[in-house]
C-alpha cells in the first residue's frame, strides 16, 4: 500500500521497510517510524473513539503526552491495551487495533452517548447513579463497567518477564534534549558518573523534530554525535526508551526502561521491561515542554493537532498529517510550523493568528486577530470556521489544523514532593516553584527556557552547579552555537462558542463542564479535577490541565497564578502493573520453604498444604483411601496404637545463650526459667505487654548459659522479632545473644507407645533413654546412627509417650528414612498436619486458633503460670480487673451430640436463650473428628466454662447456616492424668 502522505527526507530508514496492520488492514512504514507517524504517512487520521462520548478521535501529539491515540497492540497473551501510538516504535508485523468502539471504528453504536451528552456532563456519575440503592450492584455497576474503560486485556497470563534493577550515579540527567545532552556532556567530560535517561528511542528531544542548526550542523545530527560521545564514555550510561516516572526521597528515582517493547517478542533471556531504582547524588530534570491546544467548538476532530507535533511528523518522520494544513496560533511558534511545512512542500491553507499584531508571513495567507471557532467534517476535519478580526466569518478547507497555544514546561517531577509550580507571565506558563525535591535541579524548557541556545547554556550551567556541589572540578565547558529566537505569546485559552469545546480529550471534559463545576461551586482546582475528572486520565492532563484552570480562572475572575494547579503524582507516564510486580509473580511471589523431609514425603505421595511460607505434608494417603478423613483417622489411630512420626522442623527454634539467658527468659516468659535444671524442658507461656498471650512452646536448658526455645510455626518470626526487641531496646544491659535455629535443625516427633523402641534402634547405644534415665521433659545432646550429633527432647504434643529428635538439617532426609526403617517392625506411620491437629485437640493443647490475641492466661486456665514474684512482660496488665473476672471466658472441650458436628467459628448459646449478641456466651476455636472418641469434638471458650462441664450448649454458625448441639467437657479428651506421656 502506498504511503500517501510520506514526504522526502526525515530520520527514517527507507532501506528497512516494515509491514504492519491496523484494524486488520495492511500498511507499510519504515524503521524509525512510530505507529503514529506510520498511520499518518498512510493517511489514517481516525484512530480511536473517546472514553465517554465515543467521539471519533485522531492523533494529537508526537510524544508521551498523547491523550487520544490509544490502541491495542499485539495478539494473544501479549495483547496490550491503551498503548500510545505515539510512543509505539514500529516493528515488522506489528498488529494494532483501535479500541473503545463497537462494532467498528467507523461505525460505533456507543456514539449514541454523544447525542445524550446534555445528560452526561460533569458530575454525571455522582448525580445519576445515586438511587435506588438496590440498583447499584445489579444495574448501575454492570452498566458502567460495560461502558467504561478503553481497551481490554487478553485474560491470559503475561508470558514475558519483568525485572527490577538498581543503579547508582553522581548525576542523573532526565531528558536527552539540548539541555539534557549538554548537562550530561558537561558532567561526563568532567569524569562524573552520569546516567542519562530519555523516553524516546532517539536522543535529541525537540532537536529531532526541528529544522535547526547546532554548532553549524543539523540539530538532530549534533544530538546523535553528542549521544555517541556519551555512549563512548565509560563513566556515562545512556538509557534510551527509559522514562523517569517518579522522584522519591534522598535522591531515589524510578526509571521504567522499555527493553523490548519495540520488538515483536523480547530477545531470549531479556525482560520486556525493567523498573530501575536509581540512587542519584544529584539530578537534573531536562524534560522539555509540552505544547498546549486552544479550545474551540469541535476541536477534538481527527486532524486537529499540536502544531509542534505537525512539524515534528513532517521533519522527523517525513509524514504530513494531511495534504493541506491550516495553522491556528497565539504565539510566534505557530509561524515556525508554517515555515517548516512550506519548506517541506506541504500546502498551508491559512495561518490564523489570534494576535492583532501578528508578525507577517511570507509562506501563507495570514488572518491576524482571527480565531478558529468551529470545525466540521466526517471522521476528520474537513473545514474550519474562522471568526475574523472584523467579526466576519470564513470557512477554510483543510485536512489538518496545527494548533499552537503556547508551551507548558514539563514540571511534573518537581511536584512529586508536593512542590507547587509558579506562574510565569511572559511565557504564560507554570514553571517549577517551591518544593522541588532536594538535589534536583531543572534545566532548559522544563523551567521555561525555550530557545535551543538557552537550553544548551542552561544545561551546562545546571550541570556545573551540581558538579560544584559534588566537589567535581570542571576545566572547560563550552556550549555550541544555536538558534536563540525569542517566542512572543499573547495567551488565548478558548474561543467562545455555542457548542462543545474540548479541554481533556482523554476524559471527555469540555469548557462547559468547567462552567458547570463553577456554577455548582466546585471551584478550587482539586474540586474541579474530581468533579469534572479533568486531568484524571492516564495522561494526567498534560495537554489539558492548564487550559482547564485558565477557564476556571476566567470564570472566577481570579488570575491563573491565584487559581493554582493540582498536584502531579508518580508515575509521570502510565506504567504497567507488571513492571511494579517484576519477578514477584506466581510461585515467585514469595519464597517457599520446604521442611527437610519434603522430598521423602513427596515420594510417599503426601498431600501438601501451605502453612505460612512452608509446604507441609497434610496427610499421607494410602492405596484405597478415597476421602482425606480415612487417611487422617488411620494416622491418628496408628500413632495412638503403636507409633507415628511427623516432621516438626517448622516450629520456631531460637537459640539463646549468655550469662543472663535465664534472666532474659524470666522476663519474656510469664513463668520462671532461670530455675530450670540443665537437661530439662519446660512449657512456657509468653505474654504481650498488654497481658494477652502471644505464644507458647517449650524451652530446653541445654547448658548453664544455653537455652533452646521453640515457638509455634505461625509465630516463629514474630516471637524472634519480639525477643530481639526486648534484648536490644528494653534490656541492652543483659548479656544474652539470640539466633534463629529454625532452619538449622531437622526435627521429628516420634509418638506412640512404641516410640522409645523405635528411637532405641537409632540412638547410639551409649545414650540411655530408658524412662528412668530420660524421663518426661528431659532433653540431652546425643548421637544417632553411629555418631551423627543429635538432640533428643522428651516432649509430647499428641499426649502419647513421645520424643522430638533433632539432627542438623542436612541429615533430615536421612533421619526420616532411618526412623521409618527402624519403625518398620512396629508399623510406624508417618502423619501430617491434619493428624497432628486432631491429636492436639484430643489432648487439649492450644495453638494459634486459641491464642488469637484476645486470650489471657486466665482464659486458658493457666493463671498460675503468670508469676507475680518476678518482673515479666505482660504480668502487670494481665492482672487487670476485667481480665481476671470470675465470669470470664474459659477454655473447654466440646463434644457434639446427636451425631452433630462441631465447627470452628460457631458461637455458643445456652439451651433456651434467644440467639443474639446479648446472649452469646463464647465461641469454638478448633474442631476435628476424633477417631479415638468416635465423635466430632472441639475446643472453645465459654463464660464460666470450668464450672459448666456436662452442660449442653447450642453451637450457632449463621455464616455457614449451621447449628449443632454439643456437651461441654474437659479439654483433655484423652489421658487427662498424663499417664501415657510419662510411661
Amino acid at each position: 500500500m502506498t504511503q500517501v502522505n510520506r514526504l522526502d527526507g526525515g530520520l527514517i530508514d527507507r532501506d528497512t521497510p516494515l509491514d504492519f496492520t491496523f484494524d486488520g488492514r495492511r500498511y507499510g512504514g519504515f524503521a524509525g517510524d512510530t505507529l503514529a507517524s506510520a498511520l499518518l504517512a498512510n493517511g489514517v487520521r481516525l484512530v480511536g473513539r473517546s472514553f465517554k462520548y465515543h467521539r471519533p478521535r485522531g492523533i494529537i501529539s508526537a510524544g508521551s503526552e498523547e491523550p487520544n491515540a490509544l490502541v491495542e497492540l499485539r495478539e494473544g497473551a501479549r495483547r496490550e491495551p491503551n498503548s500510545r501510538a505515539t510512543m509505539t516504535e514500529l516493528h515488522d508485523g506489528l498488529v494494532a487495533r483501535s479500541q473503545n468502539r463497537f462494532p467498528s471504528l467507523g461505525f460505533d453504536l456507543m456514539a449514541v452517548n454523544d447525542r445524550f451528552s446534555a445528560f452526561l456532563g460533569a458530575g454525571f456519575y455522582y448525580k445519576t447513579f445515586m438511587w435506588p440503592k438496590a440498583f447499584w450492584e445489579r444495574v448501575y455497576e454492570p452498566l458502567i463497567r460495560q461502558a467504561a474503560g478503553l481497551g481490554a486485556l487478553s485474560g491470559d497470563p503475561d508470558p514475558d518477564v519483568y525485572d527490577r534493577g538498581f543503579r547508582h550515579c553522581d548525576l542523573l540527567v532526565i531528558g536527552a534534549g539540548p539541555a539534557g545532552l549538554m548537562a550530561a556532556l558537561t558532567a561526563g567530560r568532567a569524569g562524573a558518573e552520569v546516567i542519562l535517561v530519555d523516553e524516546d528511542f532517539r536522543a535529541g528531544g525537540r532537536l529531532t523534530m526541528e529544522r535547526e542548526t547546532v554548532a553549524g550542523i543539523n540539530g538532530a545530527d549534533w544530538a546523535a554525535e553528542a549521544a555517541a560521545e556519551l555512549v563512548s564514555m565509560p563513566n556515562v550510561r545512556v538509557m534510551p526508551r527509559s522514562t523517569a516516572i517518579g522522584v522519591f526521597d534522598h535522591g531515589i528515582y524510578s526509571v521504567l526502561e522499555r527493553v523490548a517493547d519495540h520488538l515483536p517478542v523480547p530477545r531470549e533471556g531479556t525482560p520486556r521491561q525493567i523498573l530501575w531504582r536509581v540512587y542519584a547524588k544529584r539530578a537534573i530534570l531536562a524534560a522539555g515542554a509540552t505544547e498546549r491546544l486552544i479550545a474551540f467548538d469541535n476541536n477534538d476532530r481527527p486532524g486537529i493537532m499540536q502544531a509542534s507535533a505537525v512539524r515534528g511528523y513532517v521533519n522527523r518522520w517525513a509524514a504530513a498529517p494531511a495534504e493541506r494544513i491550516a495553522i491556528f496560533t497565539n504565539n510566534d511558534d505557530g509561524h515556525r510550523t508554517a515555515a517548516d511545512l512550506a519548506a517541506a512542500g506541504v500546502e498551508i491553507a491559512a495561518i490564523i493568528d489570534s494576535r492583532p499584531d501578528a508578525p507577517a508571513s511570507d509562506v501563507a495567507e495570514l488572518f491576524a486577530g482571527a480565531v478558529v471557532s468551529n470545525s466540521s467534517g466526517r471522521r476528520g476535519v474537513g473545514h474550519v470556521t474562522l471568526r475574523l478580526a472584523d467579526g466576519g466569518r470564513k470557512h477554510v478547507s483543510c485536512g489538518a489544523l496545527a494548533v499552537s497555544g503556547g508551551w507548558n514546561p514539563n514540571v511534573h517531577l518537581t511536584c512529586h514532593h508536593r512542590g507547587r509550580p509558579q506562574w510565569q507571565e511572559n511565557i504564560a506558563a507554570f514553571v517549577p516553584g517551591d518544593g522541588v525535591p532536594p538535589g534536583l535541579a531543572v534545566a532548559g524548557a522544563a523551567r521555561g527556557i525555550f530557545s535551543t541556545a538557552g537550553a544548551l547554556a542552561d544545561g551546562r550551567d545546571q550541570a556545573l552547579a551540581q558538579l560544584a556541589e559534588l566537589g567535581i572540578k570542571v576545566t572547560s565547558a563550552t556550549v555550541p552555537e544555536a538558534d536563540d529566537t525569542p517566542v512572543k505569546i499573547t495567551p488565548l485559552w478558548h474561543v467562545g462558542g455555542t457548542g462543545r469545546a474540548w479541554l481533556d480529550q482523554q476524559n471527555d471534559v469540555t469548557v462547559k463542564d468547567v462552567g458547570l463545576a463553577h456554577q455548582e461551586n466546585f471551584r478550587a482546582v482539586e474540586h474541579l479535577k474530581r468533579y469534572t475528572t479533568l486531568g484524571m486520565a492516564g495522561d494526567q492532563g498534560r495537554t489539558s490541565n492548564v487550559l482547564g484552570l485558565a477557564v476556571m480562572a476566567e470564570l472566577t475572575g481570579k488570575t491563573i497564578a491565584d487559581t493554582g494547579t493540582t498536584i502531579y503524582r508518580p508515575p509521570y507516564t502510565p506504567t504497567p502493573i507488571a513492571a511494579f510486580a517484576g519477578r514477584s509473580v506466581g510461585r515467585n511471589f514469595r519464597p517457599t520453604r520446604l521442611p527437610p523431609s519434603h522430598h521423602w514425603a513427596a515420594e510417599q505421595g503426601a498431600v501438601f498444604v501451605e502453612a505460612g511460607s512452608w509446604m507441609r505434608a497434610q496427610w499421607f494417603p494410602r492405596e484405597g483411601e478415597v476421602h482425606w478423613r480415612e487417611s487422617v483417622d488411620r494416622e491418628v489411630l496408628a500413632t495412638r496404637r503403636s507409633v507415628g512420626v511427623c516432621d516438626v522442623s517448622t516450629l520456631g527454634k531460637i537459640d539463646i545463650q549468655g550469662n543472663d539467658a535465664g534472666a532474659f527468659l524470666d522476663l519474656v516468659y510469664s513463668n520462671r526459667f532461670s530455675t530450670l535444671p540443665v537437661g530439662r524442658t519446660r512449657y512456657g507461656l509468653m505474654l504481650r505487654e498488654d497481658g494477652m498471650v502471644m505464644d507458647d512452646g517449650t524451652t530446653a536448658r541445654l547448658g548453664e548459659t544455653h537455652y533452646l526455645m521453640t515457638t509455634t510455626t505461625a509465630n516463629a518470626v514474630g516471637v524472634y522479632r519480639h525477643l530481639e526487641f526486648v534484648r536490644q531496646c528494653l534490656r541492652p544491659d543483659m548479656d544474652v545473644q539470640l539466633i534463629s535455629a529454625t532452619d538449622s535443625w531437622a526435627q521429628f516427633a516420634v509418638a506412640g507407645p512404641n516410640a522409645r523402641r523405635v528411637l532405641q534402634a537409632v540412638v547410639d547405644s551409649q545414650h540411655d533413654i530408658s524412662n528412668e534415665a530420660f524421663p518426661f521433659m528431659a532433653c540431652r545432646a546425643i548421637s544417632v546412627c553411629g555418631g551423627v550429633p543429635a538432640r533428643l527432647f522428651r516432649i509430647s504434643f499428641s499426649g502419647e509417650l513421645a520424643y522430638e529428635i533433632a539432627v542438623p538439617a542436612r541429615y533430615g532426609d536421612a533421619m526420616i528414612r532411618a526412623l521409618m526403617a527402624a519403625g518398620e517392625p512396629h508399623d510406624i506411620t508417618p502423619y501430617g498436619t491434619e493428624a497432628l491437629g486432631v491429636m492436639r485437640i484430643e489432648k487439649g493443647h492450644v495453638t494459634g486458633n486459641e491464642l488469637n490475641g484476645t486470650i489471657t492466661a486466665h482464659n486458658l486456665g493457666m493463671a498460675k503460670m503468670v508469676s507475680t514474684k518476678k518482673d515479666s512482660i505482660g504480668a502487670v496488665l494481665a492482672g487487670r480487673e476485667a481480665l481476671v473476672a470470675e465470669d470470664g471466658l474459659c477454655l473447654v472441650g466440646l463434644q457434639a451430640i446427636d451425631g452433630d458436628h462441631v465447627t470452628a467459628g460457631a458461637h455458643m448459646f445456652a439451651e433456651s436463650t434467644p440467639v443474639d449478641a446479648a446472649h452469646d456466651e463464647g465461641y469454638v476455636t478448633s474442631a476435628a473428628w476424633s477417631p479415638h472418641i468416635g465423635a466430632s469434638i472441639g475446643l472453645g471458650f465459654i463464660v464460666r466454662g470450668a464450672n459448666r462441664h456436662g452442660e449442653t450448649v447450642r453451637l450457632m454458625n449463621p455464616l455457614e447456616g449451621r447449628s449443632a448441639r454439643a456437651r461441654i467437657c474437659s479439654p483433655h479428651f484423652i489421658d487427662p492424668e498424663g499417664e501415657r506421656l510419662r510411661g
Partner: protein
Amino acid sequence: MLLITCPYCGPRDESEFSCGGEAHIARPLAESSLTDAEFADYLFLRDNPKGLFLERWRHAAGCRRWFNMARDTVTHEIVEIYPMGSGPASKAGKAAHAASWRRDTAAEAASKPAHKSRAKKDKVS
C-alpha cells in the same frame, strides 16, 4: 522510599528496614505500682508529630540491629542516626527529646530502679 544509613551496614534501601515507632520509651519496672492510666502512657500512647521525630528503626533484612533515628516526618530529612541506649547528639534531636511530654510521666520515672524508694516515700507522705 528512604535511603537509610544503618550504623552497622551503611546506606541501604528503606525496604530493608522496619520502623518501630517512637523511640526513648523506657519500660517501667514491675515492682513500681503505676496506675493503669500511667502504664498506658508507656504501652499505648505514641506521638505522631509533624516535624522532627525520634524513632526506633530496625535493619530487618540486614544485620537485625535496632537503632534510633531523628527524622522529619514532613520532609523525610534524616537529621541523625544513633545507637540504641544513647540519646540524640544534634541540637534539634536534643530539643525534641527534651520537649517530649514523656519526660514528665510516672511511667518513665518508674523505669529507673531509684523510683522504688521514692514511690514508697510518696505513699508514706
